[in-house]
């Protein structure tokens, strides 16, 4: 018979590999970032001096950071769109129809495509004389809405729409990922429950809204959290498509600029903490909304 102390030691030994890795690659960077946010860090000699919240005071008053944060919050618009579309898509591909595996795989391809490669492809789509304008021009012309068969929209250059164009790219890239998560959630719903609802007289919409959605609520919470964090962290999409031009400058792009262009690691760390704070705030709201009521 093992004593309680031996048992605990064994448990920690089993946990040790994961804990060590998490310590090195998660907890330590987070802790160091937090420490850095309150210091002036000199990259030349590696010295850091306490600055009495100077970074926070600076970004509190800085218009550029406010603008970046506003853009990041605007980027959250992609969250409900991608969640709704992914859930509907998952519902559609959760049918036993011929060729369904092909569709499931096809929708997942953007997820596994490298963002740089996808970015190049989408730059062609969004180009002034690119695919999207070509298609819109053709469709508009065919419907008699446009005089010429070429639309002239500067998708990535017009500050009024560039961020939405980048959000469109995020939507395309992430849709398959959330679809797969929802598909797993949908497949966990017993067929009998759906059949009971049919017998109860629920139509397709009522079954979706009153049975399916409540039963995939845990998956909705997970996906919403992940996509919210993803949207708040929007950076790669911006750098590969617009490089922060045309009012697409996001909070994480600000962090990147401060750290690796201005070499102001302390200010970057402070901005990073503020982004984290917003992420946590949103997570709390989502738990309130979708979390299980006690």
């Amino acid at each position, binding site marked *: 018979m093992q004593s309680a102390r031996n048992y605990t030691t064994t448990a920690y030994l089993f946990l040790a590999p994961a804990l060590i890795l998490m310590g090195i690659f998660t907890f330590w960077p987070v802790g160091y970032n937090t420490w850095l946010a309150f210091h002036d860090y000199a990259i030349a000699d590696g010295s850091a001096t306490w600055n009495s919240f100077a970074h926070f005071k600076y970004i509190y008053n800085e218009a550029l950071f406010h603008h970046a944060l506003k853009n990041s919050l605007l980027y959250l618009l992609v969250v409900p769109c991608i969640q709704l579309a992914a859930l509907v898509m998952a519902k559609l591909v959760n049918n036993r129809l011929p060729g369904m595996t092909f569709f499931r795989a096809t929708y997942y391809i953007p997820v596994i495509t490298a963002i740089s490669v996808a970015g190049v492809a989408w730059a062609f789509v969004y180009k002034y004389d690119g695919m999207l304008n070509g298609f819109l021009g053709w469709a508009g012309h065919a419907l008699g809405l446009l005089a010429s068969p070429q639309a002239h929209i500067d998708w990535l250059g017009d500050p009024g729409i560039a961020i939405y164009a980048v959000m469109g790219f995020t939507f395309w890239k992430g849709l398959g990922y959330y679809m797969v998560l929802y598909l797993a959630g949908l497949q966990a719903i017993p067929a009998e429950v759906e059949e009971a609802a*049919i017998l*109860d007289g629920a139509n397709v919409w009522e079954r979706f809204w009153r049975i399916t959605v409540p039963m995939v609520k845990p998956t909705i919470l997970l996906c919403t959290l992940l996509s919210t964090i993803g949207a708040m962290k929007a950076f790669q999409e911006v750098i590969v498509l617009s490089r922060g031009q045309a009012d697409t400058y996001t909070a994480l792009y600000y962090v990147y600029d401060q750290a690796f262009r201005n070499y102001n690691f302390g200010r970057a760390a402070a901005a990073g903490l503020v982004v984290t704070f917003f992420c946590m705030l949103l997570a709390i709201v989502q738990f309130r909304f979708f979390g299980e009521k006690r």
Partner: protein
Amino acid sequence: MASVSLRNIRKNYTRDVTVIRDVSLDIDDGEFIVFVGPSGCGKSTMLRMIAGLEDITGGELYIGETLANDIHASKRGIAMVFQSYALYPHMSCAENMGFALKLAGTPKAEIDSRVQRAAEILEITHLLERKPKALSGGQRQRVAIGRAIVRNPKVFLFDEPLSNLDAALRLNMRVELSKLHQELQTTMIYVTHDQVEAMTLADRIVVFHAGLIQQVGSPLDLYENPSNLFVAGFLGSPKMNLLAGVMLECGDGLASLSLQQGMIVSARCNASHLRVHDKVTMGIRPEHIRLVSADTAGALAAQVDLIEHLGDVVLAYIEIPGIHEVLCMKLPGSAPALAYGDRIHIAFPPEHVLLFDHEGNALPRLPA
């Protein structure tokens, strides 16, 4: 309440895969009918076709006087109870029970009163505000039955509703279902593979095998007069003892047959359409085998292989030398103690011996 009529019902999943073959059956208004059969025999598919959850490939389904083939499941006036309960986990029991009425736009006061009434019948009023996950298996099944009652259906369908419950609870629920039927007097169609449920609940049993109805009748009739070898072997626990033999004497009186090693057995069956030396199978229920003394006419020597004491009865598994079948014999608990290896003598009373021809069909029994 309504009768249900099945007329030449067929179900094909593909052109080659037929699961229900030309099934016709009339279920009376208020009758408790049980579909029984082994896994894959088509009984659940038949129930799902009546429910409207499966399309009917061919034939006609009437619920009452209405042809129901193309009527939507929710409009057929049926309610179904599933094996897995199929409760909505995010709704309270009351919401589960009232969901169909809510969808139908029934006023809230009426929903509440019907839910309350059903809950009182099932004695679950104290559970109405709970979610299904806070209930035991038996309580969940009551809620599922309550959901069916609330709809006030013309026909209740039960798809193995007790299979997920433990033995003691199953017994309780069985009794309660029986009482419920007496109280509601509604047509009930019940699918099970458990023959005890079938025997105890049914007004009539329908035995399915390979998509065909093998026999329809009252539980006792099916038990005592199975129409073929399948029904004879399927109903009864322990199952009927079946031994191969050849006819020695065929007549419309006492028929006799020879088992292996020349042992002769008589049966009070009409074997007039058979000929001497035709192959037959004899069947006898375990409780009908008699323990006799060696000098009794027709006594067969046997040896005890295994004894099972069940309290009220003793099951003795015996072997007759030369016959490579272990026979089961059911004796009263008070019968003389038997032990492994005991040499005994048994007899098959002719009035209890059944005969089946080479196609497996039972020969008509003659009155004693």
